[in-house]
């Protein structure tokens, strides 16, 4: 067995990348119905090295290399899920979800509903999401808002290695289909390893930092961004609470509203484009149900409405950054 980390202690530090393989391996050990499929995920360990060790430990009967056939990958995962397996399918870059969008938009999320509950589709589609690495417009998108537009999918996007493991456990055990976004910009990031048996229920946000002046709601890569901004603002005497949503569906509205009771100001930081971004849903729910909690308008920092450009200077211009978050919080507190 190669690099899958086993039984790491509490104090251990690991990377987000290794946590992906660790999270999958833990579930494969406890449930033989869990099988993986995707391009280059076997002996090669995945293009992002997020499946390293799985092939060595579980073999070709549980870890299947596929042709470049995104429709077949997700469609076959669906058929297997409907008939007793718990497949974990990898779509290499989240941009490529567009190649199998029929399955995400029309097939997987609707099968249970339109059969009147006859069919259950317990699968996970894992995919590397997001920008910041200069991969250009077709390998850098944050597309969690695509999935958000479809009732019937659960959506997970962890920000720390321990959360990757804990949320992977719940995603794979879920009887509902889950789209699991791993952020490319976080793969090398480090954090505490997950304790044994770690499982985080889907739909339970994390207060990543407590504060009293502004609530910043973030997801995946925008969580460390918000935390860094909070640290900077702390120096200026501004106290920022950071809510890591962890999941978009189920959406933890209660934690957001409870945080607003303490802070009365809301900033949402999302990497997907402002047009149709998930922050708009959060803002709309808060406007509906928490208007009286607010002392200022809800603000959003989001990706700009352009395809992601290649050059660092251009890419940073259009995706959320620490500076943009800091500026937005400052505007909010002075409202």
């Amino acid at each position: 067995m190669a690099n899958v980390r086993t039984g790491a202690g509490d104090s251990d530090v690991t990377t987000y990348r290794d946590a992906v393989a660790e999270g999958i391996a833990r579930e494969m050990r406890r449930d033989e119905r869990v099988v993986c499929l995707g391009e280059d995920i076997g002996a090669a360990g995945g293009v992002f090295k997020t499946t390293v060790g799985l092939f060595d430990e579980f073999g070709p009967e549980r870890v299947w290399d596929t042709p470049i056939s995104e429709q077949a990958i997700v469609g076959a995962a669906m058929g297997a899920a409907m008939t007793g397996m718990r497949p974990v399918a990898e779509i290499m870059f989240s941009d490529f979800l567009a190649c199998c969008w029929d399955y995400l938009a029309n097939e997987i999320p609707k099968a249970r509903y339109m059969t009147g509950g006859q069919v259950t589709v317990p699968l996970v589609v894992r995919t590397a999401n997001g920008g910041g690495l200069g991969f250009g417009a077709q390998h850098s998108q944050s597309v969690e808002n695509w999935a958000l537009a479809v009732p019937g999918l659960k959506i997970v996007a962890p920000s720390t290695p321990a959360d990757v493991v804990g949320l992977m456990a719940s995603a794979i055990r879920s009887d509902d289909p889950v789209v699991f976004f791993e952020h490319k910009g976080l793969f090398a990031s480090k954090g505490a390893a997950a304790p044994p048996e770690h499982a985080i229920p889907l739909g339970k946000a994390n207060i990543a930092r407590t504060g009293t002046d502004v609530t910043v709601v973030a997801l995946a890569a925008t969580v460390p961004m918000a935390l860094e901004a909070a640290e900077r603002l702390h120096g200026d005497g501004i106290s920022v609470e950071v809510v890591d949503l962890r999941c978009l569906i189920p959406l933890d509205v209660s934690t957001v509203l409870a945080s607003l009771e303490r802070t009365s100001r809301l900033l949402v930081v999302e990497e997907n484009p402002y047009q149709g971004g998930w922050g708009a849903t959060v803002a709309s729910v808060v406007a509906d149900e928490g208007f009286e909690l607010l002392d200022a308008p809800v603000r959003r920092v989001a990706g700009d409405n352009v395809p992601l450009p290649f050059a660092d200077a251009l890419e940073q211009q259009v995706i959320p950054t620490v500076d943009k978050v800091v500026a937005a919080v400052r505007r909010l507190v002075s409202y």
Partner: protein
Amino acid sequence: MSTEAAAPVDAATLLGWYEQMAVIRGTEKAAHDLFLRGLVKGTTHLAAGHEAVAVGASAALRPDDYVFATYRGHHHAIARGATPEGCLAELMQRHTGVCRAKGGSMHLTQADHGMMGSYAIVGAHLPMAAGAAWSAKLRGSGQVAVAFFGDGATNIGAFHEALNLAAVWKLPVLFVCENNRYMEYTAIHTVTAVPNPAADRAAANGMPGVVVDGNDVVAVHDAVARAVERARSGAGPTVVEALTYRHFGHSRTDPATYRPVEEVEEWMARDPLLVARSRLLGEGATEAQLDAAAERAAAEVTAAVRAAQAAPPADPADAYTDVWADGGAAWRT
């Protein structure tokens, strides 16, 4: 057409198939009538004319094998054990419909009989059938999966992806094309570079492609039975292309005027019910036996229509059930 001679099937079995085809035909006619009377909304894609494919193929399957069909799937649902009443109730938006009126004509499903659904996106279910076969292989269950699809589906990407995956993974799956010569309103040969759109592409994906008379229930049964045997033995997938014809237009609103009259007449003369009838007569069955079977079928359909019509309407509360595995639809806390 299949080159090998059809193996003999005993007359009693064939009579059973004939009766089942008559039930399906009767149900399709009933659906059509109910539509004209405003009792079925939306649309229907009738499979009258295709019965031999559904019945012949189903007869070659085990009860626990998986079937995936298209929006033109009434015949597969019934051949797999959905009742005419459950199907008609679904079309008539009744609470007792097979999908509790949340599926409709295009999505008939009877999962407890291995009828894993009807899918309205052309070609989408071919990879799913490959996946169900993959699951059967992983579990060592000996089950096979069948995807039924139209000639038009052979030009969509998912068809090619599914065939290659099934072949390279040696999956126990059958791809059964119902080649009725038309997509919606366009003749398949005008948009396809090979004469047999499914079978001709089998070799390119490393599997046998068989062309069979899709209006002869015995020929379909035999071709499918051979492919099933191959699949169960671990030798991998097969494409079966059944040549058939739809009696109605593509969907409810289509009078099918684009089809040459002689072509329609030629195929109507080869109606799968007539083909089965003459086969049975040739094997010693009497007209009286055949009429009795047809009458039983008609009575079953009449009772089904009555029961479906008398069933309670769909419950609006059901709009909020079955999104998630917990039964509900809550997307937030």
